[in-house]
């Protein structure tokens, strides 16, 4: 298997590369990003470039990639401006799929890491979205719109290229020790926000399951759309209780305005989609992915519990984030220098 991972500079990209490096059936791993990888890698080739079509096409052609893992989708709208997010999500995916779908392309599998944000969060929603359930309201936030566009591209790609196995994985609120996601940031605050009078049911995925699901989709053939989320839902009040934080209510009317001061003082950037989640919550049905053979390691409650344990450890001994800096010359030396003894 010859794999191309986009977004190698993100945590997911680096972790996936580490997982895949350990496998014997993966010959080549090429990673693409504008930022260097965050974790030490052994045999992954890193190409520092933006995802322009010409570069992607050349890489795919030259290395005869057969599997594309597209993890470079921005699902947290507070990290980048709307335009940058659009650029990375929509334009980046468009270029990637165009390169993968070129007539001389050797790509036989595309896996996309999307988000359950595409379902939206609205009072008319069913409590559990299946993969084919429609949204109840047109998207109003930029991130939802860009993700829907990305998924539309993928659908078109799948139709135009029936010989390619296309997997679309939608992940729901991810929590983990090493991650910075909207919920993990909210739960790290001394006082966690909530919308007064609302106690929505939320579902979580553990970072180990995200990695596991992506690796599973890479090494097995699982065409189609899948929700990936831990079993069960928890009310927000219970999540805060498990993590051991008190809640501060935001007014139910004009919640966005009340969140402005928090944004301006940079305490917490509450995106509109997060505020909707804190009001109505969202559940997804995760049985389809189980039916193709994936075993979840963590349920929603277990995810929150693990996160709580990580937080307690952090409070005691400080952050344990791996401090790794990528050094290009060192990595090039190890990969290409004739002085290094390889047992090929």
């Amino acid at each position, binding site marked *: 298997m010859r794999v191309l991972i986009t977004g190698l500079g993100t945590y997911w990209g680096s972790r996936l590369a580490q997982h895949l490096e350990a496998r014997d059936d993966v010959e080549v791993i090429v990673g693409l990003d504008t930022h260097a990888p965050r974790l030490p890698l052994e045999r992954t080739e890193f190409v520092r470039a933006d995802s322009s079509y010409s570069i992607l096409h050349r890489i795919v052609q030259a290395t005869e990639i057969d599997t594309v893992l597209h993890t470079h989708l921005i699902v947290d709208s507070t990290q980048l401006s709307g335009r940058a997010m659009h650029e990375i999500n929509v334009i980046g995916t468009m270029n990637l799929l165009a390169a993968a779908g070129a007539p001389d392309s050797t790509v036989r599998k595309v896996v996309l890491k999307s988000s359950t944000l595409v379902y939206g969060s609205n009072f008319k929603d069913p*409590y559990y979205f299946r993969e084919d*359930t429609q949204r109840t309201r047109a998207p109003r936030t930029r991130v939802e719109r860009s993700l829907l566009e990305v998924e539309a591209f993928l659908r078109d790609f799948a139709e135009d290229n029936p010989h390619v196995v296309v997997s679309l994985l939608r992940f729901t609120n991810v929590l983990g020790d090493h991650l910075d996601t909207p919920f993990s940031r909210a739960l790290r605050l001394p006082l966690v926000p909530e919308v*007064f009078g609302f106690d929505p049911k939320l579902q979580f995925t553990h970072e180990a399951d995200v990695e596991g699901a992506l690796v599973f989709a890479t090494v097995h053939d699982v*065409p189609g759309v899948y929700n990936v989320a831990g079993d*069960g839902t928890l009310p927000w009040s219970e999540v805060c209780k498990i993590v051991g934080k008190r809640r501060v209510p935001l007014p139910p009317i004009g919640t966005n305005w009340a969140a402005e001061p928090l944004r301006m003082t940079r305490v917490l950037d509450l995106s509109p989609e997060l505020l909707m989640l804190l009001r109505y919550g969202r559940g997804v049905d995760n049985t389809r992915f189980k*039916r*193709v053979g994936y075993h979840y390691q963590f349920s929603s409650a277990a995810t929150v519990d693990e996160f709580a344990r990580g937080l307690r450890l952090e409070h005691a001994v400080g952050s344990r984030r791996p401090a790794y800096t990528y050094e290009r010359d060192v990595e090039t030396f190890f990969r290409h220098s004739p002085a290094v003894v390889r047992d090929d």
Partner: protein
Amino acid sequence: MTRFPSSVSDEPPERPVIDLTEHAARADLLPVRPAVPMPTHLQDRASSPADRDDAGVREGDVDAWGRSERVRSLTRAIYDPVYRFWFRAEWEGLENIPERGGALLVANHAAAVPSDAPVIMHGIEKELSRAVYGLAEYLFRTLPVVGTLWSRAGGVPAHPDNAYRLLHDDHQLVLVFPEGSKGTGKLYRDRYKLHRFGRAGFVEIAMRAGVPVIPIAVVGAEESMPMLWKSGRLAKLLNLPYFPITANQLLFGPVLGAFAYFPAKFRLRVLPPVRFDLPPDQERYSRSRVMDEADSIREHIQGALYDMLRTRRSVWFG
């Protein structure tokens, strides 16, 4: 009140194997686990592995539908005096409700602020020790505080997917009022005349979920809050389905009148279950068949209502 042992309990309907994958990647499909941790004291089937794992982690008992057995017990404790001494509810035919497995309970609806839903849910939970989920308007989900309490007490928005999942996957009892707000928006002079059952979505959901429909005829709700007049214009202004002027409001004032019910005696008759000999999980069901079934259920309830009204000597004492 004596417990009525069920004599019609079938096994829960068999779950058909639905191949949702485009190509069945693996022949050995995993069994699907139920999503709902049922309140442990209310069921005797073993909880799923997921529930057992979560048992040490969870701090509360809110289930997958937002219902909390703790809140529900508290609600029942508070409501019990109303149920026993104010409405003095009496049931007939409770043996028609199965001890296990999903069923769609269907009843006539009345009272501008409905009094029948709490009575039915309380009665069944108390007599049969089975959880009942009540489907209601989406509006409840948008209300702060009240909406959360409603959800913890077993209220679920009336989305067809919710109903299907509750019935088919989780084998729960689901209460629905097909008349909807048209039923509660009836004037007193039209009492006990059932409105048509709309698009009969409830029949289709029951067919698709493979569960029986159990009609319940309720006498007493109409008189507990008789509506004398309603204003369409005010309703539109306030975005309500109707704006009622009830006898309660005339007697107790506008605010108290929304909660102070007259002590009408409640009689509830559970009619025999209606089973559809159709396969579950179909894409479509014949529209005419669905409408026929809905009409027949409506007539059954109507007939039972008239029968009960014939034997009722007094509104307040039965």
